[in-house]
């Protein structure tokens, strides 16, 4: 195995594109090194992106935030601007692992690892976030939901690197939230996760909503039916009942030791309702 830590994105892309064996980007390593330890991942080349300029910065852009791919959870948690605009996204990222894991784990790594239970992904999808991807043919922007295509699978082509994640400008009277269910309070993998983002008009009627579920399908689900039942309502009890029903119906979980299909479907609705209530309070300011 070779280890490279290039100082430019162009070199990183060229290294990955030029490797004939298995090549992996290294961000925080909290998934990659676990995979190597277990023998599940056997890289021929590791390209550490943490020495590339700009990978560690969070910058304002068009009223939103561009977050470098190497920004760890603890750094985003210290960023008052991002926390004020997208508290749900920051809270989702902060749920990942322990203090030690937070010192290293990145949102881009959480996304590219493509676990169906990745905590920050439903929150980013609800926030309508996009990713900027650098590759041998230049750079492209795609919605977060299009990155993971299945457990451990992404749409990234050979040589492509997520360079940054963009959280758009937060519309006025908007709020977001992410909640997950785990059997304990810390250090566990989501049995269900749910991100909600919504916008109100001056009268308190919901004008836009986005709801995403994690850990209940092979990839994170964007639940359009759930958004539809919130729009045009005051997000009252009847609307929340409809939201919960839409989420339970949309969930397509598997049975495993962490939860049955029936339990996960029910919890999808429960979490959506609770997350929507938090998002609503935040939207009201």
């Amino acid at each position, binding site marked *: 195995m070779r*280890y490279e830590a290039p100082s430019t994105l162009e070199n990183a892309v060229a290294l990955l594109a030029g490797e004939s064996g298995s090549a992996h980007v290294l961000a*925080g*390593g*909290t998934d990659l090194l676990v995979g*190597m330890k277990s023998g599940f991942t056997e890289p021929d080349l590791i390209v550490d992106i943490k020495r590339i300029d700009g990978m560690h910065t969070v910058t304002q852009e068009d009223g939103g935030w561009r977050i470098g791919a190497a920004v760890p959870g603890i750094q985003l948690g210290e960023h008052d601007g991002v926390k004020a605009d997208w508290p749900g996204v920051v809270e989702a990222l902060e749920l990942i692992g322990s*203090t*030690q894991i937070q010192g290293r784990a990145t949102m881009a790594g959480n996304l590219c690892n493509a676990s169906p239970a990745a905590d920050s992904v439903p929150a980013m999808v609800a926030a309508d976030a996009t990713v900027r991807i650098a590759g041998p043919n230049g750079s492209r922007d795609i919605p977060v939901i299009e990155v993971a295509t299945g457990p451990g699978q992404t749409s990234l082509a050979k040589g492509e690197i997520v360079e940054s994640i963009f959280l758009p400008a937060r519309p006025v009277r908007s709020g977001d939230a992410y909640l997950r269910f785990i059997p304990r309070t810390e250090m566990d993998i989501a049995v269900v996760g749910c991100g909600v983002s919504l916008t109100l008009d001056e009268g308190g009627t919901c004008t836009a909503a986005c709801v995403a579920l994690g850990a209940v399908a092979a990839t994170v689900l964007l639940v359009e039916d759930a958004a539809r039942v919130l729009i045009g309502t005051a997000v009252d009890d009847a609307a929340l009942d409809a939201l919960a029903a839409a989420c339970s119906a949309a969930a397509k979980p598997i049975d495993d030791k962490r939860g049955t299909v029936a339990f996960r479907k029910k919890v999808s609705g429960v979490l959506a309702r609770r997350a929507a209530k938090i998002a609503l309070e935040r939207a009201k300011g």
Partner: protein
Amino acid sequence: MSQIHVSTTINGDATEFLCEPDETLLDALRDRLGLTGSKEGCGTGDCGACSVTVNGRLVCSCLMLAAEAEDAEVTTIEGMAEGEALHPLQRKFIEHAALQCGICTPGILVAAKALLEQNPAPTETEARYWLAGNLCRCTGYDKIIRAVMDAAAEMRGEMRRAS
């Protein structure tokens, strides 16, 4: 595999070593540099026995490649006492009998020190959450938390409350 030459700073001392590309920082500390205070409980980020700080951030050294330490400032449990003088956390761990087998202790001390550096007056809940990634199979955690809270009070210059 050709070895990688790494120049780094460990506990304030400029240090150089050679390592394999896929070698973890934990293995380099223990097997190449003789710094065996950091322990391997799991090797997968779950137990915190390998906790060190890198550029001021608390991390698991089992989940970091040794090569990544190039130009970094690393601190380990070996850098905690000043000569013979124990750090207040170390003294309080002894006073409160906050260890039994001791395997988790170096990692917990490093993690607790990192906590008190950024939050000198944590609540008990904050201390428990901060240390959630440090497993102890012996003590039941209570004595550890007492020791951390007591050390924090002493470091803030407050009178020690009778426990």
